[in-house]
Structures are given as structure tokens and as C-alpha cells.
């Protein structure tokens, strides 16, 4: 039952993404715009860019994720799908986890794939690229999971754009600090593993707790 519900939800989300592929591309395009505009604004000076490349990439990915956050449960709340999730013989937290994973896979994963190219655009030193990719691979799911809690908390409100940003940003700051910090440490010849391990620990914790918290928030929001 749990497996078939997850599979049904994944297939549904993939179909929906495909039907609205223009909208689905929005976060990726946004991140690309940020990176390109930043490179232009800094004047394409390779040494200057290399210094800030990791921070800019992290910021672009984080803001793109924030942009897509409101769509996580909004559509399902508006058309009554969330009600049916609540009534399904499957734990709501499980459905939330599957939905959040799909959301991550369709908004953050394409960015992760594009990161090597964007990094090239910003003249990121090649030896820092693996650290950047590792920090993003650990950090973006964590962003999505924390974002899911925030999106669930605000799903009962009609317009929640600014509230989502205000609620999510403080939670995102430590992730940004450790994520971008790990690459900066690698750039200075220090060991980035500590920061990456912290991100990993946060991810494990969030994988367990965030769906439960988001499910509880959805129950309250639909009350």
C-alpha cells in the first residue's frame, strides 16, 4: 500500500511536471539568470569571479528553491487533493516525504546537473568543484525538507509568498553558511569535510523529522 501510493504520487508528479514543463523550468532559469547577470556585473574578471563563485552559485540555488517553494503544496491544497491525502490509508508524512523528494528532483536536481557549467562560467577553480557539488548534493535536499515544513505551515493562507520567505530564510542561513563555507574552506586549503558532515547530519535529521512536522502542519492548516 505504502509502495503503491508512493509510486502513484511519483507518476502523477512527473506527468504534471511534463504537462507544465515551462513552469517547471522557472527555478533553473532563475538560477541561470542570477549567475549570468552576476558574471556580467562583475565585469568578467576571472580572478574576482573565482573568489565569489561558490557563494554566488549557492545563493542562486537557494533563491531558486525559495521561488519554487510555494508550489509544493499550494496546488494540492486548492483542489482538495490534500484532503484526500489525509484520508488515505497511508501515513501523511510518507506522502509529504515523497512529494518533497519529487519537488527536489524536479527543481534542485536539474540545477545540480547544471552546476559544473555554471561553475565554469564563474571561473570556479576546478579543484573546488567536487566540494561544491558535494555540498549542494547534501544541502539542497535539506533546503527542500525544511522548506516543506514552512510551505506546510503557510498552506492554509491564500497569499503566503512573503511569509514563506521570511519563515524559511532563518532556517536556510546555517545551511548556506556551511554549504558555501565548505567550498571556501577548500579554497583556502583547509579540510571541507567537517562542514559537509554537518550538512549530512542535518539531512539525516531532516529526513526523519521534517515530514512529520510538515504533516502535522498540514493537518492544522486544513482544520
Amino acid at each position, binding site marked *: *500500500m505504502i509502495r*503503491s*501510493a508512493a*509510486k*502513484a*504520487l511519483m*507518476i*502523477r508528479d512527473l*506527468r*504534471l511536471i511534463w*504537462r*507544465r514543463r515551462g513552469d517547471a523550468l522557472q527555478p533553473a532559469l532563475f538560477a541561470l539568470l542570477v549567475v549570468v547577470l552576476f558574471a556580467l556585473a562583475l565585469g568578467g574578471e576571472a580572478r574576482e569571479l573565482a573568489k565569489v563563485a561558490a557563494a554566488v552559485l549557492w545563493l542562486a540555488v537557494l533563491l531558486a528553491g525559495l521561488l519554487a517553494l510555494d508550489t509544493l503544496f499550494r*496546488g494540492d491544497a*486548492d*483542489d*482538495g*487533493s490534500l*484532503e*484526500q*491525502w*489525509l*484520508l*488515505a*490509508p*497511508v501515513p501523511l508524512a510518507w*506522502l509529504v516525504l515523497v512529494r518533497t523528494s519529487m519537488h527536489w528532483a524536479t527543481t534542485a536536481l536539474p540545477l545540480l546537473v547544471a552546476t559544473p557549467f555554471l561553475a565554469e562560467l564563474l571561473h570556479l577553480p576546478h579543484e573546488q568543484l567536487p566540494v561544491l557539488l558535494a555540498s549542494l548534493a547534501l544541502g539542497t535536499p535539506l533546503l527542500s525538507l525544511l522548506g516543506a515544513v514552512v510551505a506546510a505551515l503557510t498552506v492554509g493562507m491564500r497569499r503566503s509568498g512573503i511569509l514563506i520567505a521570511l519563515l524559511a530564510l532563518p532556517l536556510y542561513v546555517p545551511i548556506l553558511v556551511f554549504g558555501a563555507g565548505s567550498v571556501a574552506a577548500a579554497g583556502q586549503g583547509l579540510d571541507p569535510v567537517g562542514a559537509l558532515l554537518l550538512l549530512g547530519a542535518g539531512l539525516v535529521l531532516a529526513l526523519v523529522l521534517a515530514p512529520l512536522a510538515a504533516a502535522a502542519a498540514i493537518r492544522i492548516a*486544513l*482544520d
Partner: protein
Amino acid sequence: MSEFEPTHPPLLSARGLAFARNEQPVFGPLDFSVDAGEALLVQGDNGAGKTTLLRVLAGLLQADAGEVSIDGRAATASLRSRAVSYMGHLPALKSDLTALENLDFLCGLHGRRRGQLPGNAMAIVGLAGYEDTLVRQLSAGQKRRLSLARLWLAPSPLWLLDEPYANLDLDGINLVNRMVQAHLRDGGAALLTTHGAYAAPPVRTRMLVLGRAVANA
């Protein structure tokens, strides 16, 4: 559906059920029960609390007082999820998916009654030929019919139908009645809300009339 024989305790019973929103009573305390093979017609004016009652019974809202039991046992979330199907005002359909894709998803979520296929259910509700039509292109009545198909596929014995006749033509109203009749014959039960008795299924029916709950009292 053999586990819900008519010899069992009532399929659904409520005792002293009451709900208040912001200290204002919405309905209750109510006592009623529905046996397998029966329909309960919940009537009342707009704002009398019909939808709220159904949402409480479905478990979407917490009652303030009273207890609900399903098949003789106190209703827990897991018992409800297996025994209850709820059709509310919101269609729970994704407008960017086709009719059949929507049914596939909802069957995956709720499980499927043995021997029933989404294709058959679409034919039963008169949507044959619309399988690959996007739901956004269906009319309100057709969407309602698709929700009925979803209900037909669900394995639960207890149907909670909020205004099932809304948006339906005469043929659709007959369809709802036929479906309820067939479901009750299989040992199920149904709660229907309407604001008038203009269309009741030809089955053993109980009535529950909700008044406007002591407003301004």
C-alpha cells in the same frame, strides 16, 4: 465486503457529537447511527453545519465532544482511512491530468475495490470516451461524475457525500441514486447532505435535520 454484514453493530454511530468554531457551536450534540445497507440523509439550510459534520466524521476536523464509532469500534485514523470515503466540495482532481490518470492516482492512494477497473468505473458514470481528456476540459458536472467514479473504485464501505447532486443533470442525479443503491446492496452505507429532499435514493433512508445551531444565543 463480507466483514460488514448487516448483523454487525451499526456501521457508523455517533453519540453526543458536537463541534464549535471559535466558541460558536456549529452543530450538535447529535446522536445518530447508520446500519450497513442504509443511507442517512443529512438535511439543513445553508450554514447549518452539514459539511462540517461530514468533515468531522471523515476525520478532517476534530469534534469538540462526543464519540464516533465505526463498526462498533471507536473511530481511529487508521480505521477511518480504510472504512470511509469522502467526497467533498473540492474535486481533488488535477486539471492538467487526464480523467484516467486522475483515477489511476487516486486508486494508488486509496486502494481499489477488488474486480473494479478505472475504465469500467468511467463507463458506469457515463464518461466513456473521455478517458484521455484533460480534466480542465471537462464540465463541472463531468468532474463530479469523475469524482463519483473515484468513489465507486474505493474499497471503503462508508461513503460520506457532500452535496453529491450539485452540478448534476437529471441523468446524473439518477446515477448517484443508482450508485448509492448498488453500494448499499453490497453492504455499504452512505451519508448524503442535501438542502432539500428533491432527490433521495430509493433505499432505506434515515433523516438527520440540522437546524441553524443557536446562533446569537
